């Protein structure tokens, strides 16, 4: 294996891992607050089209990313109103959000089909970004660095800040948090909106960096992988990061298998691998009971204060 090949492989893995890392981090915070939002796939799609549309209109990918975050957060607020204000079933509402996001994104994307934008690639000078070896450090889209920075930031927020402590308290025991005066609903609104924004940014990585164009259902189930990733990681940011890159490697294998035609196994086998590995990994983790132990105690349950 030549060094060129290894460098190309690493860059591919980073690209594939970034969207699920972003969406996974967002969902981790949502779940830490005690809410299960299964609408990640829908929010990613809304983010993908919002980011793309804003970039087309403003010619500025930075605004595009902001638009994607806003789009994802707006979509998540539909979910938030239903589950927080009306105590609707979180599983079904999340599913509805995914169906809605799929539909609304393809309606929004109608006038953008077939258009392309300048891909949102590295902002470093070519001497660094295109350098044979240095591109391993400087050759990525700003979204990649953002995702990487968000890993320690989220860890720090959850572990070391007062707000993070309150958020975890709300997820572990909403009634106690409520009784000592914290607004469970407000905390969960904030967490859900953050999750939506992160999923949105993860989604726009597809439409602004990878392809860079809009296609219906372009996130291809990655939102669901991000959801599995949170369980896989046992609700820990460090493991989530490792898991995202592990899945990135699996997905890169599929691309490699298709491109090189090393076909002692059909390409569909490699395409199914990330999903199969998710199931297998979930089985290992769930069977050890650690997943259950780390899960926020109020996850998925409605908040019903007596007063």
């Amino acid at each position, binding site marked *: 294996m030549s060094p060129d090949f290894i460098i190309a492989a690493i860059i591919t893995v980073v690209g594939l891992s970034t969207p699920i890392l972003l969406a996974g981090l967002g969902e981790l915070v949502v779940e830490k607050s005690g809410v299960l939002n299964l609408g990640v796939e829908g929010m990613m799609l809304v983010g993908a089209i919002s980011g793309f549309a804003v970039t087309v209109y403003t010619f500025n990918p930075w605004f595009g990313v902001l638009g994607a975050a806003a789009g994802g957060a707006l979509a998540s607020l539909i979910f938030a109103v239903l589950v927080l204000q009306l105590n609707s079933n979180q599983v*079904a509402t999340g599913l509805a959000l995914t*169906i809605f996001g799929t*539909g609304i994104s393809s309606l929004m994307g109608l006038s953008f089909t077939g258009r392309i934008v300048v891909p949102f690639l590295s902002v470093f000078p070519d001497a660094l970004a295109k350098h044979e070896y240095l591109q391993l450090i400087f050759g990525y889209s700003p979204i990649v660095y953002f995702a990487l920075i968000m890993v320690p930031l989220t860890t720090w927020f959850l572990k070391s800040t007062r707000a993070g402590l309150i958020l975890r308290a709300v997820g572990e025991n909403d009634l106690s948090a409520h009784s000592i005066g914290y607004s469970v609903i407000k905390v969960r609104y904030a967490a859900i909106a953050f999750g939506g924004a992160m999923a949105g940014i993860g989604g726009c990585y597809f439409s602004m960096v990878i392809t860079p164009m809009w296609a219906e259902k372009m996130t291809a189930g990655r939102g*669901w992988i991000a959801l*599995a990733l949170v369980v896989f990681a046992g609700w820990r940011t460090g493991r989530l990061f490792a898991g995202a890159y592990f899945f990135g490697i699996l997905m890169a294998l599929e691309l490699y298998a298709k491109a090189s035609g090393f076909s002692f196994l059909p390409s569909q086998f490699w395409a199914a691998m990330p999903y*199969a590995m998710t*199931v297998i990994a979930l*089985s290992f983790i769930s069977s050890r009971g650690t997943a259950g132990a780390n899960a926020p105690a109020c996850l998925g349950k409605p908040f019903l204060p007596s007063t």
Partner: protein
Amino acid sequence: MRIKLEKRREPSVAMVVTTPIASVLLTMLIGIVVFDLLGIDGFKAVVDIFLSPLLVSYKWQDVAVKAAPLIIIGLGLSMGNRAQVWNIGAEGQYVIGALCSAGVGIAFGQTGGFFVVLLMIAAGVAGGGLWAVVPAWLRTKFSVNEILSSLMLTYISFQVLGYLVGGPWKDPNGRNFPATSPLADSQTLPVWPDSTVHLGVLIALILPFVFWVIMARSEFGYQVRVVGSSTTAARHGGFDSKRTIWATMIIGGAMAGLAGAFEFVGVLHKMDLGFPSGYGFTAIIVAFLGRLNPFGCLIAGIVLAVTYVGGQMAQTSVHIPNSTAGIFQAMMLFFILASDILVRYRIRLIASSKAAGV
């Protein structure tokens, strides 16, 4: 004035019946407003999507054929949801069911007849059920969340489909297009004369009665409801919640497999990459819009089939994309979920509590 929610002792029957109807009407109303804002004739779009398929008689058969799989899958899913079992991989079970059915068809070559067709359908039921065994086993053995495992299996099923129709089962006379050879006429389901309405539609009309009897009159149905309401209550009642998970999961998968087999043997007659059409996902909406009641599923299945057919009609008449029907379907689900609170709670307006010195 302040709004206060008061928990009802019993769920309100009136609300259970009226809220789904209100959800559909509200969706239509909002649809008109939103489409007008988007510069599309909203009234025409909504009439086309929700009413035209019912008003033009030649569209009735399309509605019936589309409603059949939605009803059949919705029935299975609603039983699982009653037991708090969340199988959202019905789409995969639907695909695997149809593939098993196709496998039997291919094995028999040109031989057809009653028993071969029956065997094909049985294979579909078995295939869908077996595909659902995986999440059931993982849930009961390793406590793996069945939402994620059944969904991951759906993506795997698409790859299985792609492999089979593009490889071993590819039609040799098909110009290298990834699809199986069309079924011989003797291997297809009987249809109503001069229509596309196949025998599966009739079965979709009968099954709600069967499910109603099971849910309302059998001990198994009682067990499902008890396990769904609370696992501790179930344990006190001597019910094994694991067995309920197994049973409802497999029934859900078997129903999805049956729907897949009907779609293959009764409608499409060949398998290709376009086979997964989202019925398995839409059936989740059917189950909720039907309030997890078998007859509710029957009506909800027809309503959603209307939006499918109407969505296609609106595509040509007002030039809106096919995905629009999906938005309406999701909106119906949002409203029905939002209105759940009215079933369980009574809304009271009470005078401001400031006067009471609080």
